[in-house]
């Protein structure tokens, strides 16, 4: 047990970690943004659609939720280009995967939120003469957002952490940066300690920011 911690080598390569963290955040933000669009559109469609559409959306959600993310990453990066004629970089491929993945989770969050909007509020919207579209935009979505914010925050944090999976297809995000330093310096304990701290701090900052947003919205309820 005579191991002496030495962080010097880590600091020398810190740009790999810092750049990696920024890329992780970028991957997360883009994927979540696309995921929100997928989630909202499908959730709204789901609650107003018939059986066939519901079954198709449910199948998408179930498929994504029951396949490990790492497999989805492999499927989209290695599998898809062999079947259809597309070529994309590893980061783009990962964004596609994580978008579809976050979309599936967010459909569920938004759908349950939409279904939790009290019927009385929708009746009130009808009674003043709002059209279905106006009721959706002015009554149902605002209330749904308030209901789902806590669940949304948790999902966002999860998705941020999931960007570490991108390392398996050599996307130079934070975990990949850690692996690179590890291979080149063999300072395995130090590098993973630092990277853990970086995930933790970033996660906490994100959570704190999201809680602030929640509190703002809760006050307005």
């Amino acid at each position: 047990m005579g191991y002496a911690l030495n962080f010097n080598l880590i600091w020398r390569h810190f740009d790999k970690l810092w750049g990696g963290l920024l890329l992780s955040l970028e991957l997360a933000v883009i994927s979540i943004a696309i995921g929100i669009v997928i989630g909202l559109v499908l959730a709204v469609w789901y609650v107003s659609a018939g059986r066939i559409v519901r079954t198709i959306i449910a199948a998408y959600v179930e498929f994504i939720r029951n396949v490990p993310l790492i497999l989805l990453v492999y499927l989209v990066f290695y599998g898809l280009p062999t079947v259809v004629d597309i070529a994309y970089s590893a980061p783009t491929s990962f964004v596609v995967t994580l978008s579809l993945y976050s979309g599936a989770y967010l459909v569920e969050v938004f759908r349950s939120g939409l279904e939790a909007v009290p019927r009385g509020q929708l009746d009130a919207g009808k009674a003043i003469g709002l059209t279905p579209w106006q009721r959706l935009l002015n009554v149902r979505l605002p209330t749904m957002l308030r209901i789902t914010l806590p669940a949304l925050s948790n999902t966002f944090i999860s998705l941020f952490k999931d960007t570490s999976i991108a390392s398996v297809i050599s996307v130079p995000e934070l975990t990949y940066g850690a692996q690179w330093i590890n291979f080149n310096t063999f300072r395995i304990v130090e590098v993973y300690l630092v990277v853990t701290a970086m995930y933790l701090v970033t996660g906490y900052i994100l959570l704190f920011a999201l809680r602030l947003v929640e509190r703002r919205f809760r006050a307005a309820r």
Partner: protein
Amino acid sequence: MSTSSTNIPALLDVTDVSKSFGTVQVLRSVSLRVARGEVVTVIGPSGSGKTTLLRCVNFLESYDSGSIRIDGKEVGFRETGARQRRGERDLAAMRAETGMVFQSFNLFPHLTAAGNIMLGLTKVRGKSRAEARTIADHWLGRVGLAHKADSLPAELSGGQQQRVGIARAVAMGPKILLLDEITSALDPELVGEVLEVVRSLAEDGMTMVMVTHEMAFARDASSRIIFMADGGVSAAGPPSEILAADTDNERLRTFLARFRASHF
């Protein structure tokens, strides 16, 4: 049935409306005519179809047969050809002509008192925000809540929320106001302030149909009372006649006796 309003063209004309939820028939050939400026109260035991009838009038519920006309216009179904439900835009436009106040207030929780009133004015009536705000402030003043215009529903008492609910409905300038047990969810000490608002609207000549358990209020404020039982109109007439203890109508007598017994 009422003889008082048969010669004047009715503002609301409900004819032979029937409706079932599955195998349960909740409305049995209900007919009801309400003239402009009339205040009609619907009473009856729970499950007698009062609320369903009210919800049919602005087509929050559909009905299986019969017709409901407001100002001569069929509410939920197209006028020509086979019986066919109106399109959603059409329905929305029809509903804007009837105001409804709900038992559980149903204010939009993310909007202020003024915002609740302004939503319909801006989106449905096409008013500018400034115009809508002026109208909202006017009606909030009428219900005694000018100082609460920027409060959120969660910051208001039940009585205050319900007064905002009334202001939201009347600000749209409806032809008829539907009041669905609007004091049932309120603490007893808050009932008076809400009924006071209804009374002042009645004095202004607002046409109203209300479902209520406030018999004293029904007696004072309504021009006619409809007694419903088992989904049908069992008795109808002026308050003095309907609320008389010695009515011939067996069911009504039982209902009133039970009601009196439970309100002492």
